């Protein structure tokens, strides 16, 4: 018993809790720096691994940016998301304002606008360039209409409003462009799914790449691990350098992917803004943004760490 207390007082020396904590922090810092130094010492193989990780991460990042730029159009299309109700010829003004009032109270309607037959004729004349023809007509053939602006781009909302308006006695005919709504909706869904699936598959790839690189570095430091195991290193202590190596692989790979994407955006900026100018001044080429960049770097660092962890738990079993 005395022997044990002796040993314990031996190993704990006279260090206070804060000194131990400081020593622990120093150990981690040294470990991280050492892992980075080792990557630097084998530039060729490190660069290869980092490039593969970066390319694997670049693909979903690229798709994400594409989706983000497309959704600019989505939100502006929502502005043009209209249902038009053509009214019966004999509808009076009271009925119209009462209908508009009820529509305005509907939760999925953001705005309504009345277009009188005269306005419709003027619009048609301007839009079609057939003003003279319209003027020769004895009577205005165009009906009055109420244009309903929907609050979202969901297909169900448009359908719901169509059903509602068809039941109105004052409404003669309801028109909406269902097909493009449906198509846009499913296209955006598809992009989102594709991004998620790509992230899943390529995350797995990053895991395997780091795992494999860590396996080689474990093999090259086998003597060291063997000795440390014999003189009483815990598994956590022996694993730590490799976990930091994995963390660096992930973080640096993520940073490289980010740089590659930034470079790509720089190259595309000129032609893209030319193209976007045709669609209106409000459009511009969007980059990753701060949040997505943070997710990319944090996620890739976590993946690198996890890959190293899996590799360590697999290859440490022989020690």
């Amino acid at each position, binding site marked *: *018993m005395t022997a044990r207390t002796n*040993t314990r007082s031996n190993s704990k*020396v006279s*260090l206070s809790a804060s000194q131990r904590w400081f020593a622990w922090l120093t150990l981690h810092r040294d470990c991280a720096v050492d892992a980075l130094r080792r990557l630097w010492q084998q530039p060729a193989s490190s660069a290869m691994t980092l490039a593969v990780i970066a390319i694997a991460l670049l693909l979903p990042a690229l798709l994400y940016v594409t989706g983000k730029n497309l959704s600019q159009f989505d939100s502006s299309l929502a502005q043009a998301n209209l249902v038009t109700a053509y009214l019966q010829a004999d509808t009076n003004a009271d009925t119209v304002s009462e209908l508009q009032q009820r529509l305005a109270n509907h939760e999925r309607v953001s705005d309504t606008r009345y277009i009188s037959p005269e306005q419709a004729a003027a619009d048609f004349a301007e839009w079609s360039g057939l003003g003279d023809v319209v003027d020769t007509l004895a009577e205005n053939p165009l009906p009055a209409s109420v244009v309903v602006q929907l609050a979202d781009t969901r297909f169900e909302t448009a359908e719901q409003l169509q059903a509602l308006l068809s039941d109105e006695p004052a409404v003669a005919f309801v028109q909406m462009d269902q097909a493009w709504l449906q198509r846009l909706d499913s296209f955006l869904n598809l992009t989102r799914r594709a991004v998620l699936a790509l992230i899943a598959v390529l995350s797995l790839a990053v895991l395997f790449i780091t795992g494999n690189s860590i396996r080689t570095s474990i093999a090259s430091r086998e003597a060291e691990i063997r000795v440390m195991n014999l003189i*009483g290193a*815990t598994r956590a202590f022996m694993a730590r350098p490799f976990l930091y190596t994995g963390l660096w692989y992930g973080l640096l790979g993520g940073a490289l992917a980010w740089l590659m994407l930034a470079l790509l955006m720089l190259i595309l900026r000129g032609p893209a803004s030319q193209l976007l100018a045709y669609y209106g001044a409000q459009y511009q080429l969007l980059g990753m943004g701060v949040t997505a960049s943070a997710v990319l770097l944090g996620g890739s660092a976590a993946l690198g760490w996890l890959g190293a962890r899996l590799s360590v738990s697999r290859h440490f079993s022989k020690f």
Partner: protein
Amino acid sequence: MIRFDDVSKRYPGGHEALKQVSFELEKGEMAFLTGRSGAGKSTLLKLIMLTEELNQGQILVSGRNINRLPARQVPYYRRRIGVVFQDHQLLFDRSVFDNVMLPLQIEGYDRYEAARRVRAALDKVGLLDKEKLNPITLSGGEQQRVGIARAVVNRPQILLADEPTGNLDPELAAEIMVLFEQFNQVGVCMLIASHDLSLITRLKHRMLTLEQGRLIKDEHQPSRRGTAP
């Protein structure tokens, strides 16, 4: 300090390395473990270090049954035992100083305290002036002394050595043994496996002799008793 009760070890494949071995080493005692190669000396040391598991019996170290030690306690147990290997097991990717530092690093020592202890250990083995060198540039005897410094740097209560002089010429081997005796004099319990009978019979310590896995002789200070006036 170390007690074997009826310990047997059979390797997978059927080879019986140790058969019902029992002995006890007191605190601060120094003993040699001898016998031909294959007699079971290394196996016995490996059982104490918990790098091999026994099949029968029990081993008590400081009164504690080490075979019941949970796996996560094993590293902490090993830190209390210094080990010197025949092939010294030094790492050639770092300096002499860093090699000796390793056990202290593992224990999470403050680096100034650690450096002080490393220098003290290197001083004791007479290699203080070589701390910055890579161990690969040292002679066999010096390498072994670095290995000894590493084994004693965190002041273990027990020191095990497996053929520590196996690769050394007689003169250097004798020097290493003198070093071991010095550690023993400050109270470290030592068990040294060696087949170099001519060397160890000259030193007056207890001698455990293994033959085909059996402990056939346990002579307490044989020479001293024989030459007593």
